């Protein structure tokens, strides 16, 4: 019985050690909120490109009507 408990304990310890080898991620960047700056920049660029495409779309529609 004692042996089983010891081995179980060792096994759990091993699991814990393995769990501690964590992968480095940008947790800090997410927690202090600066990642939102990146999101804002990317969204701005996307919206800029979209507005540009919409303008081109409108211009072509106008040309198609005038022909």
């Amino acid at each position, binding site marked *: 019985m004692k042996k089983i408990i010891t081995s179980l304990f060792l096994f759990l310890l091993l699991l814990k050690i393995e769990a501690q080898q*964590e*992968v*480095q*991620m*940008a947790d800090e960047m*997410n927690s202090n909120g600066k*990642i*939102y700056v*990146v*999101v804002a920049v*990317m*969204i701005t660029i*996307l*919206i800029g490109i*979209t507005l540009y*495409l919409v303008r*081109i*779309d409108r211009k*072509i529609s106008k*040309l*198609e009507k005038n*022909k």
Partner: protein
Amino acid sequence: MATPKDYMQKQWWKILSIVLLIYTFIAGLLMPVPRIPQLQETIRNLYFHVCMWFAMMILFTISVINAVKYLRNGLLVFDIKARQYAVVGIVFGLLGYLTGTIWMSYTWADPNNPAYASFSSIAREPKLIGAAIALLVYFAYLILRDSIQDLDKKARISAVYNIFAYTLLFPSIWILPRLLPSLHPGKEGNPALNFNDISPTMRLVFYPAVIGWTLLGLWIATLKIRLKILKEKIILP
């Protein structure tokens, strides 16, 4: 004048594309992702880099469908469509290649050595060579087209070549890289499509991202097609 209802009926997919892309950018950067050593946060590139190739493949497929349509009924409109879809597909392919270059230089290169020391192993990567061949074949499509003056001949030859180029995509980017040893993931199946291979939270962003990027490509392609048709009408009354 088109009423807003008409507009929505015809243009809803453009709005959908932008909404999905905004979702991709927000959720793609903020949603939790699996923690994988080596990849770390770069796993989020799946929503951007991989989607470029998906969009390219779909655009090339539409291009070859239009090429076959041209061969069947000889209307020049289909030739214009085939060409413009192929061009936008090439743009997406180049973007996929460039983003792949950035990604691999941070994940495949050995951080203990200078960057050029890893170059010889990375340059041997079959997926890179295959993708380069595929893109070069499509470059040749454009060169071939623009070198022929006669409109019908140009359309017919380039439609036939388009079918050849599309068929070559399969060995060069789908089959050969899987037969050879490679660092690129996805050798043992279709990791992006296989439901067991991609984590559920990533799937929530990945599939909308593919649709969003593809629709954006379609939008650009339709703009180019409409412009080209207008131009042709000025030249050929």
